[in-house]
C-alpha cells in the first residue's frame, strides 16, 4: 500500500499567527511591573468597619458559600485541584461543586499551572469576561513567581500578578489539596469582611 505523503494544510493562516504574535509582544512589553494586590480593605478606617450591617453579612455569606470556579488549569497543579474536587477531599461541601467551563458564570479563578507569555492574553481575556465581584487564587509556586521554571525568562511569566490581580497565594509544588482548601477558607474570611453597602452614603440621602 502506498503511503501518501503529508499534503499541504487547507487552512494555515500565517496572517492570523502574526496578529496573535503582535498581541503577545504588546502584552509582554506592558507587563513589566506586577499589579498590586487588591487589599483595599486593609486601609479602611476602623469606624467604617464597625458599621458592617447585617445586610452586608448576609450578602457576604451568600457570596462566600457558593463560589463557582472558572477553568484555568494549564499544568500539574490541575491534578491536585481535580483531586480536591474528588471524593476524598471534597470541595462540594464548601459549595464549590460547579467547575463549569464558562467564565461568565464564575466568580473565582484558581490558576493552577505555569503561565507562559503565549497563554497570557487568553488568561487576561478570561479574567475580563468574569463578572464582578471576582477573586483569584494563585495556586502553586509557578503561579506565585514562576517557580522552578523562572529562569526561562523568554517564555515564562514570573507570576500571575503581572497579568491579573491576585487575592490569595497558595504555595507548594504542587500544594496538597488540604493546602488548597486552607487557601479557599482564607479567601472566604476575606470575603466575609467585605463592605458592600456604604451606610454613610445611604444616611446622607
Amino acid at each position, binding site marked *: *500500500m502506498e*503511503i501518501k505523503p*503529508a499534503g499541504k*494544510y*487547507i*487552512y*494555515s*493562516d500565517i496572517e492570523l499567527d502574526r496578529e496573535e504574535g503582535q498581541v503577545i509582544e504588546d502584552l509582554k512589553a506592558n507587563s513589566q511591573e506586577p499589579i498590586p494586590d487588591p487589599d483595599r480593605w486593609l486601609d479602611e478606617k476602623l469606624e467604617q468597619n464597625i458599621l458592617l450591617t447585617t445586610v452586608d453579612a448576609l450578602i457576604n455569606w451568600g457570596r462566600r458559600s457558593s463560589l463557582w470556579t472558572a*477553568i*484555568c*488549569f*494549564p*499544568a*500539574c497543579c*490541575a*491534578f*491536585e485541584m*481535580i*483531586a480536591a474536587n*474528588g*471524593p*476524598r477531599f471534597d470541595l462540594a461541601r464548601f459549595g464549590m461543586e460547579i467547575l463549569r*467551563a464558562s467564565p461568565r458564570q464564575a466568580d473565582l479563578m484558581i490558576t493552577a*499551572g*505555569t503561565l*507562559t507569555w*503565549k*497563554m497570557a492574553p*487568553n488568561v487576561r481575556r*478570561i479574567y475580563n469576561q468574569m463578572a464582578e465581584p471576582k477573586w483569584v487564587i494563585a495556586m502553586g509556586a509557578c503561579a506565585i513567581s514562576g517557580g*522552578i*521554571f523562572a*529562569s*526561562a525568562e*523568554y*517564555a*515564562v511569566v514570573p507570576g500571575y500578578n503581572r497579568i491579573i490581580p491576585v487575592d490569595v497565594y497558595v504555595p507548594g*509544588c*504542587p500544594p*496538597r489539596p488540604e493546602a488548597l482548601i486552607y487557601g479557599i477558607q482564607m479567601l472566604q474570611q476575606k470575603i466575609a469582611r467585605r463592605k458592600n453597602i456604604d451606610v454613610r452614603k445611604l444616611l446622607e440621602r
Partner: protein
Amino acid sequence: MAVRTEPFVLNMGPVHPSTHGVFRMRATLDGEVVIDIEPVFGYLHRGIEKLAEQRTYTGITPLTDRLDYISSMSNNLAYCLAVEKLAGIKVPERAEYIRVIMAELQRIAALLIAVGAFLNDCGAYFTPFLYMFRERERIVDLFEMVSGQRLTYNYMRAGGVSQDLPEEFMPALRKFMDMMPRFMDEYDRLLMQNEILIARAKGVGILTGEQAINCSVSGPVLRASGVNWDIRKADPYSIYDQFDFDIPTQATGDCYDRYRQRVEEMRQSLRIIRQAMEQLPSGPVRAELPQLIRPPTGEAYARIEAPKGELGFYLVSDNSIAPYRCHIRPPSLINLTALRDMVRGWKVADLIIIFGSIDITVGEIDR
C-alpha cells in the same frame, strides 16, 4: 437542487473542557464534517531543554517530573537510565526491583486517568473519572509513603533510588493488590458492553498499522492498531526480561480498541507487580557515586515504555557537570502526527473522542 456550501474554520481554543489541558485546534469544517485540522500548541512551553543545560545531572530530575506530570516515576526512570548509560553506572539489584514496582504502579495510575478522561469525553460526565480517582488515591498514598510527595516524586536517582522502602509499604501494597482486580472487574462489568460506548467508539477514527508506523506512533495506540511492539519485550531495560507477561494487541485500531488496550495493559501490570513483590531481594538501594557526576564525552539515548508511548532521553555530554544537550523524545507530540489522518471525514463530536483516545499530556508536548 443542491445547496451551495463552503468550509469555515472553527477554533477550539486553548481553554476548553475537553482538550485535556491548554491545547488548541483549528478545525476546517464543511457543515459538521471535519475536513482538516491544525493543532496549535506552545501554551505551556517552559524551556525545559534549555534549563537542563544549566543544571547538574542530579538537578535535572525534578524538571523531568514535570514533563508528563501524571506519570512522574516513568519520566524519572527514563532519565536515570540515560545518565547510567552515558556514565556506565551499575545499579544494585534491590533498586532495580523497586524501580520496576514503582514504574508499573505508575503505569496503572496513569492509565486509569487516561481511561477516565476518555470516558469523560464520551459523555459519562465525571462519574467514571472520579471512580478511577478513588483507585489512584490509593496508589498515590503508596507513593507518598515512599517519597513524601503526591504528584511529582523526584524519587529515582542515577544509580538507584533515593531512599529505601519503609516497613509499612509492603503490607499496604499487598492490600492494594488484593483489592485492585475486584475494581477492574467492576469497571468491565459496567463499561465493556455498554451500548453507548460501543455506539460512540466502535469504528471511529481507525488508524491502520502501516499508517501508525509511518507516523512514528508508539505505545498503546500502536498496539491497538495491531502492531506487536513493546519496548519492554523488544529492547528490555532494567530487569524486565526476568518477568513473565504478555503483550496484548487489538485488531482494528479504532477508539474502542484503544480503550480496551489500556484496560488490558493494566491487568498485565498487575501481573508484573505480583512477580516483583515475591522476588524482591535485600541489599543497598543506591550505587556509590560522587555528588557531581562527570560522565565521559559522548552521547547516549535511552528509552522506556512509558504509559503514553516511547519516552526517550538523548543526552550529549562534554565531560562537565551539566549536560551539553538534553533532548526529550515526547510520545504525546509524536502520537499527535497521526491525528490528521484519523480525523478526516468525521464529525466534531467524534473529533473530541478521537483526540481523547490518543491521550496526550500538554506538559510533555510543550516541555
